């Protein structure tokens, strides 16, 4: 008996030690034959927005529910649904004989379910128009199929345009919470990486929140935790606090959980500006020491965005008083400052001339504070709304300008279903 008890205890300890592994990964599947997108030129970017709208799901309700919202990004078409917070990330290509093909994958981000999707625009005249970069004058109806995992697409899917969307680009922000997925999800992409920035837009994000810390030699990097640990990084020698290692040492000794490099803030800003159509990036400064260099980089990228004619802004989040104090010092010493967002005190938004308030959802919708902030000409972006019920509640009660979320598709879907367009800000805003 004693031996059994001790054996059980030993087994328990060993199981506990060995069982501390990350969640299973559901990798993005690929078509066995390479897919159809490679057989033709990509759908012109100008033809993406005309596809946007509410679509009725005529076949495939078991996957997508009764309706989906189609939004777009850079070379990206996204179907968002309220069913299991599902998203379909698609790319488009124009094939011979007036065929417009959409291919990609679907995912239920809360679990491991994923599969392939292939759709074709049914009306060839509409396909011809879109592939020529013209507005379609014919009905938009996509038919095709989907599958499970990397299995063949053998289940019918049919969606038909129903109604236009309410304005969202530049008006309502579905802000990816440091990535396309939470670390506990199964995307196989680590938070705060260049890879997740691209995936976030494919999953419906129109903006991105990133966590910024600074290395020993003053390089702002994208990393959430104060130190490197086994749960978020790889590399036996990847240890210590972020500010105890130089950037060169970080690159020598650390990779993120899924093998990605830890990027600099500068690299991240370049990707968001050049490789996505996101509206803004929310720089969540974890330490005051990150403020000066991050602000300089924000100014630089905002200037470059203006030069290339992109509606994009890097916004510095004043996350706590120590960061705000550093911000005020920087403001005193500088000719120019990037736009700011205050997380903790709505009164400071107007006092500091910030463009937005980023309240935590845990304190409730705080509708009176929302009115106060809006009276100062600023916007309201909650963090972090992931749950269907709370997204619904906050959209109805506070009519926010957006929210940080790990369910970017779901937030956009519910905004389009039950939300109202947020009021215009009084003065020109970089957001």
């Amino acid at each position, binding site marked *: 008996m004693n031996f059994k008890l*001790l054996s059980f205890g030993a087994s328990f300890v060993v199981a506990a030690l060995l069982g501390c592994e990350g969640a299973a990964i559901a990798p993005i599947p690929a078509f066995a034959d390479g897919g159809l997108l490679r057989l033709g030129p990509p759908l012109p970017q100008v033809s993406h927005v005309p596809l946007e709208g509410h679509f009725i799901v005529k076949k495939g309700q078991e996957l997508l529910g009764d309706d989906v919202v189609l939004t777009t990004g850079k070379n990206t078409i996204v179907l968002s649904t309220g069913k299991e917070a599902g998203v379909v990330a698609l790319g488009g290509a124009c094939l011979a004989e007036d065929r417009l093909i959409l291919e990609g994958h679907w995912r239920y981000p809360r679990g491991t379910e994923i599969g392939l999707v292939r759709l074709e625009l049914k009306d060839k005249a509409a396909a011809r128009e879109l592939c020529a970069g013209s507005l379609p004058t014919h009905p938009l109806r996509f038919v095709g199929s989907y599958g499970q995992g990397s299995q063949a697409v053998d289940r019918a899917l049919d969606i038909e345009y129903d109604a236009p969307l309410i304005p969202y680009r530049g008006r309502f922000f579905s802000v990816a919470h440091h990535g396309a997925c939470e670390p506990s999800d199964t995307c196989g992409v680590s938070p705060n990486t260049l890879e997740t920035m691209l995936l976030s837009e494919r999953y419906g994000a129109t903006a991105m929140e990133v966590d910024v810390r600074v290395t020993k030699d003053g390089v702002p990097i994208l990393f959430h935790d104060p130190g490197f640990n086994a749960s978020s990084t790889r590399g*036996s*020698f990847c*240890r210590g606090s972020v500010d105890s290692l130089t950037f060169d*040492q970080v690159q020598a*000794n*650390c990779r993120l959980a899924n093998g990605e490099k830890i990027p600099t803030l500068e690299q991240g800003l370049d990707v968001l500006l050049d490789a996505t159509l996101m509206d803004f990036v929310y720089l969540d400064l974890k330490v005051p020491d990150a403020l000066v260099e991050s602000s300089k980089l924000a100014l630089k990228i905002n200037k470059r965005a203006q030069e290339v004619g992109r509606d994009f802004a890097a916004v510095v989040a004043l996350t706590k008083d120590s960061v705000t104090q550093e911000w005020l010092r920087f403001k005193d010493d500088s000719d120019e400052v990037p736009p700011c967002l205050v997380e903790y005190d709505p009164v400071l938004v107007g006092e500091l001339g910030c463009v937005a308030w980023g309240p935590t959802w845990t304190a409730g919708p705080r509708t009176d504070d929302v009115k106060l902030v809006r009276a100062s000409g600023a916007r309201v972006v909650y963090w972090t709304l992931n749950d269907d019920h709370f997204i619904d509640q906050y959209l109805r009660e506070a009519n926010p300008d957006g929210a940080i979320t790990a369910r970017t598709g779901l937030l956009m879907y519910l905004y389009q279903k039950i939300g109202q367009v947020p009021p215009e800000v009084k003065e020109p805003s970089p957001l």
Partner: protein
Amino acid sequence: MRARSSTRFGLAALSSLGFTSGAAWAESEPAPAELPPIVSSLDFEAAAYLSLTLGETAVPDVGSLNPVGASAFAAIRYVPRQFPFHVFFQTGGGLVATGNTTGPSGTEYSNVISALFFSPGVGLDISALRLEVGLGPALIFASTSAKDESSSSVSLAVAGEVGLSYRFLEKTTWAMSAGVRYQAVPGAGLESIYLGVQVRFGSIAYR
């Protein structure tokens, strides 16, 4: 009851409470027949291990990891004679792993990981075999250095271990075992296999 020869271990205070140093009196005169049997003992041990740590550098193509380390432990163990199981506390540590890595600048870094463990646990004796399970805090020390740049850190984590040893030599006053031990520090991403010897060098008997 009366203690004998306890001062050999500097345990006069314990002997006045009625504890007896079994190892000590075994070396002196034969035990008087009237002494009651030993019901438990407090054993003192030391151990030395070579370890093999599972791990790799972040970029294996441009780095190397030497997983062989060495460590030493000291343990105190309360062993009741009525039951096959006992409790212990051990502490010790040593070198866990070393290696070289290279940064994008071309700088080559020398890395060292060492650790210090504090581990209470329970053990089970079956004849000459001993199975042990321990769980306790660990301090993990890491350093990364180059010619003109060095960084070091200390982190606190929980370590767990399972060990199996075989007592192949037992004398009246001491014993020696060979053992294997698996140790994991999930929070620090360390898993190691230890091979080594344990020596029981002293014991206080309770009657």
